[in-house]
């Protein structure tokens, strides 16, 4: 057994352990000086990224991988904590790592002038840990624990600019909804344990019967995770907190949001995978019902998100509302995929949704980075107070244009590739779905053209005559995201074949996920 095999075998635990350890070492390291602290943070992420990378190459080649804490094999599977990593989890972990790297590089310049940065980086690493934990774990109680950690870390980060009352308000609203949501998840976990005497997802999925209690559990998990992912009408915390958190960390808070979205996928496709085709009253199968519930909420999300974004005047809050709409697109694709499970276009819709997850993280992320750069330079949030920055901030303008075109799905950028797949699959379920999706992407264009005008064009106000370009590390972070977006836009097939297809197959093939644990007993 060579060293790489050992590393791969241990990597699920190390992916969690390294950033967690790094988080708690951070205050100590920060005492030396800021350069060492920055390098230490990068080092921790590089190490984590390395393990995610080798784990990804292994999982994509050889199928799901199991890690059992505290034992070599599965003697008593229900009492061990399991990490089960399949292509979907590793896809999410890769996205999280990309967002984490960009956050870190961006933070170097962006947060330079603030104090309390040791706590800031500790929280950032903690949030990354918890997001990765939610994505890799195979144990539902473990999922709850990481959900709570991410909730605490995000809340503290949202309130990081504690001198602003609004940041505190946003953080309080966030923690109220997430704490209540998390408690309902715990309640659902209790119900699951009461019925099946097990806590790991694969074992539960194997024995799940779809009793009356299981219906309650399904609703609780769907609604809570949907709320954490930002579905309308439970989205109101999202623009508040995205708009008030430091823009540098919005990316990883978004990573945690996407992890909740992943939770929805895991619950529906894996936990309820065996019972999805159960026929209920009026001979409606469960998958159709759940699919249409998600589609309805998704359509409302898209419309409300875009419509509200159109009238916002706060730059970051506006992006927050458009993030709600983007989440709606993902839920639309996934909902159509569930409702039409088994047809060829369901697979296309699912792939479109999963690709859109990656694109959403990059597009909205880039826009937040640009918003952060604008805030860093002008110290203004309202679109009404900013004007004519394109004259002095050329690179930022170019990055914003790329983000704008991508987020509305203009060819040939990445947003178009995923929206193309979504439009051309969901119309087969019902034509109205594609119509609304296309229409709202045009509205999204109007939203961001307004921002483009307000921030970068328009007359040169005297207050901004002497503004300079954003610092180099911020430009580097934006450039990396923009390059990734252009790459995905030009070669969507490469990304779909390498990452998205395996992830969609892993979701559809829940028997393999279950078999990895249950077969091993």
């Amino acid at each position, binding site marked *: 057994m060579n060293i790489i095999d050992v590393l791969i075998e241990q990597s699920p635990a190390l992916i969690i352990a390294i950033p967690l350890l790094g988080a708690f070492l951070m205050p100590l390291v920060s005492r030396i000086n800021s350069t060492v602290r920055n390098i230490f943070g990068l080092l921790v992420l590089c190490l984590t990224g390395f393990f995610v990378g080798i784990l990804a190459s292994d999982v994509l080649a050889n199928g799901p991988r199991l890690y059992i804490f505290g034992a070599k094999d599965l003697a008593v599977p229900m009492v061990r904590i399991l990490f089960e990593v399949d292509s979907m989890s590793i896809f999410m972990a890769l996205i999280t790592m990309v967002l984490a790297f960009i956050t870190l590089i961006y933070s170097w310049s962006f947060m330079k002038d603030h104090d309390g940065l040791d706590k800031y980086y500790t929280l950032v690493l903690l949030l990354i840990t918890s997001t990765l934990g939610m994505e890799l774990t195979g144990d539902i109680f473990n999922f709850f624990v990481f959900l709570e950690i991410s909730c605490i870390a995000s809340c503290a980060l949202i309130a990081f600019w504690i001198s602003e009352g609004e940041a505190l308000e946003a953080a309080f609203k966030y923690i109220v909804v997430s704490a209540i949501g998390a408690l309902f998840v715990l309640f659902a976990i209790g119900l699951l344990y009461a019925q099946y005497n097990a806590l790991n997802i694969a074992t539960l999925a194997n024995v799940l019967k779809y009793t009356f209690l299981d219906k309650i559990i399904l609703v609780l998990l769907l609604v809570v995770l949907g709320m954490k992912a930002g579905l309308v009408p439970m989205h109101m915390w999202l623009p508040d907190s995205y708009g008030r958190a430091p823009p540098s960390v919005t990316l990883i808070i978004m990573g945690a949001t996407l992890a909740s979205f992943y939770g929805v996928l895991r619950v529906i496709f894996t936990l309820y995978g065996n019972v999805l085709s159960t026929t209920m009253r009026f001979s409606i199968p469960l998958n159709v019902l759940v699919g249409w519930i998600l589609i309805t909420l998704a359509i409302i999300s898209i419309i409300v998100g875009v419509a509200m974004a159109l009238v916002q005047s706060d730059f970051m809050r506006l992006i927050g509302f458009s993030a709600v709409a983007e989440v709606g697109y993902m839920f639309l694709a996934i909902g159509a995929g569930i409702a039409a499970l088994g047809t060829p276009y369901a697979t296309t819709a699912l792939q479109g949704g999963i690709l859109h997850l990656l694109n959403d993280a990059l597009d909205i992320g880039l826009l937040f980075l640009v918003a952060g750069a604008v805030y860093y330079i002008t110290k203004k949030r309202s679109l009404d107070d900013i004007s004519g920055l394109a004259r002095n901030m050329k690179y930022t303008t170019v990055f914003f244009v790329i983000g704008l075109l991508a987020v509305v799905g203009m060819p040939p950028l990445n947003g178009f590739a995923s929206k*193309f797949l979504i439009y051309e699959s969901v119309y087969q379920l019902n034509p109205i779905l594609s119509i609304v999706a296309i229409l709202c992407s045009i509205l999204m*264009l109007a939203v961001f*053209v307004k921002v483009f005008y307000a921030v970068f064009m328009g007359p040169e106000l005297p207050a901004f005559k002497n503004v300079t370009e954003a610092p180099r590390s911020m430009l580097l972070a934006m450039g990396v995201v923009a390059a990734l977006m252009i790459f995905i836009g030009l070669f969507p097939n490469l990304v779909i074949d390498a990452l998205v297809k395996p992830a969609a197959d892993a979701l559809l093939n829940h028997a393999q996920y279950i078999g990895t644990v249950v077969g091993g007993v």
Partner: protein
Amino acid sequence: MDVLGLSELLVRIILGTLGLATFGIIFGLFYIGIDRKLSAHMQGRIGPPFRQPFRDVAKLFTKENIIPDHAIPWIFNLSPLIGLIATISILLYLPLGGFPPLFASGGDLIVILYLLIIPSLALVIGGFSSGSPYAIIGAQREMATMIAYEFPLAVLIITVAWNLLQKGITNVFSFSTIAAAPVWNQVAGPLGFIGFAILLFVLLLVTPAELSKIPFDSPEAETELAGGLLVEYSGRNLAMYYLTDGVKTVVMASIIVALFFPYNLSPFIGLGSYTGIIIDVLFYLLKVFLVILFSVTLIRVSIARLKIDQIVYTYWIPLTLASLVGLILVMWDQNIVQWFS
């Protein structure tokens, strides 16, 4: 792909782009000339000669290309160019003159729907970047108009594709599929026919807004905004917008022809080879002319300009409802016929 195939593809791309750009510009300007002449006659004027648009463009190239003080030069200069190029690129995906599209497997209806946004977007961004209050008001009106007409347009495109899908056809968004199975042949009964007739009517009314013609030209509104988003443009930049307008006219008319009248004359009268091709091309040009006559010329001489909120209302309430009715009729079409048979 081998070297030979690759080089052939390259030659096709280069020659196709050059050839279709020439075609689009010449016929675009020509149709604008016809439109101006005809509308002048309808209003009891003599009107300019047919070749007036060519002269206009030639003259604009010799004029000074003024960049205003408040403008952001690089955006101001780039946007007319991008708009024109994007419009030209649509031509390569469209069936023109009775021929199949040059790159049928390179882009479909959804791609074209999005590429059609780019010229309008270029206008908007150019208007915003020129820094004149008139242009800014015009640009935001253009954006609102774009939102407005995109709703019925989306309904129409999805309906056409969905109807084909119900007949078990694959690649329904592709133009070669649509040309092979014209919509009128795909209806089962009168309901479907009425549905598609409504959709055709809606599309004919979307066209003037897409081309910023009266009554939907409030972004340019010479009388109140002094030319709106083009107010600061001059010289070769304005010539680019002029050309874009011409090419876009051909593009929109060709889309209507391809979606609703993809028929050729040669199979009917049984002419082969070159004569057949010439007849088809002439017939296609005639169809394009008729579409422009009905959706641009006749409408713009008979109706006065609408206010911007009236434009949004017109498209979002009456026309969207009409197109949704069309969609529902097409959806019911099959069922009704089955009930009665």
